[in-house]
């Protein structure tokens, strides 16, 4: 065998071994699905979020399989919006005094239909249909296209 060939093959061997090792490390470090991502039920800080936890005109953020969701009670209705501001990703909150969904980071404002009232956000918040029973509030589906 020519020296070049042997050198080449050895080099290839070393590279593939290193690639194998790096591949293992990469797979190992690959981000895993975490937290309460599995359930369509909304989970708050202390467990499943019950409809009774919200008074009229009150809002709370909880986790679900659809990500963080802002739930606002208006009378008997529960309104669900994506709680992640479309500007830079902070978590929004409901302000009953101003009757607006507000982002504390850069002042973006939305209404209860998710529409942007004031920037710097440009895209609306996704709307989520919710249903409630004694066990808690669940995500039915995303509204909008």
């Amino acid at each position: 065998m020519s020296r070049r060939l042997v050198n080449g093959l050895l080099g290839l061997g070393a590279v593939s071994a290193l690639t194998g090792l790096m591949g293992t490390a990469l797979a190992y470090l690959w981000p895993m699905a975490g937290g309460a991502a599995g359930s369509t039920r909304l989970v708050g800080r202390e467990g499943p979020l019950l409809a009774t936890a919200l008074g009229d005109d009150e809002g709370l953020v909880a986790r679900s399989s659809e990500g963080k969701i802002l739930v606002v009670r208006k009378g008997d209705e529960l309104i669900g919006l994506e709680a992640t501001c479309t500007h830079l990703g902070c978590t929004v909150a409901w302000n009953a005094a101003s009757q607006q969904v507000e982002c504390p980071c850069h002042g973006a404002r939305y209404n209860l239909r998710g529409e942007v009232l004031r920037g710097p956000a440009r895209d609306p918040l996704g709307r989520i249909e919710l249903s409630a029973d004694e066990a808690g509030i669940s995500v039915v589906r995303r509204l909008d296209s």
Partner: protein
Amino acid sequence: MAHHPGRLFGNQRRVLLAAILCLGVATTPVISQQVDLEEVMCTLCHFEQGDAFATSIHYKRGLLLCNDCHGGLPFEADTEIAKAPGTGFIGRPARGDIAALCGSCHSGPAQFFVQGPHREWHNEANPTCISCHSNHAVVDATLDLIDESCSKCHEIGTPALAWGTDLAAALRGAKGDLDHTATILDSLIAADRSLRHAMPLLETATSSLREADPRSHALDQALMNKTFDLFRQDLTAVEQAIADHAETRERRRWIVYPVWGFIVVNVLLMWVKRRQLK
């Protein structure tokens, strides 16, 4: 002394008896001691029944005394007082009351029994609970009971008897399979804890099979098939988890061959290279 309240009022004796009976049974496990039958006055005259009762699980676990089914005052020596009207004494329970009486604690089996072919208590040919389970010498129900009981009334060669035999065999087979899988799982978990995730699956299968016991009293083939199907599904899930685990292990071990192939090739290459350097 264990307390066995058995006071009855008026016509709703069955309901109240049932309620109090269940309450009594519910509390007696806390104080479940056997009462010395010598002190139970009923057995002075009714000694045959007393002897039979002494062998029963109801007596040995301190669950029931005579008055829990028959009413009256069991520790009262004077028979007039013991069986006085106000004591709730009913003597021998009416045939039609038996399923409800036993069912006041054993609600599952009783509820299914009264749906089955034996429910017509007017018909003296039909069994009641005590026909198979005995009235006084009640022991822990086993599958052997099915083999013994059906043939008391059904002739050999009849479809009814065959159905009973098949049912017992099916239950026996199912229990055997469950125990077998449970044993395998236990020994595998002892070696490798990661299989513990299969334990909840095993519990699901166990409770599925437990459903079969009360349901079998309905003697309904369709119902039993459904029950067994569900059980088989659950058991398969456990077996699948075990198989997946073994397969994963095998697959991982198999990687050893290409690894050594790679190493041998490289070792040879390096040997060649060293020779070239000379």
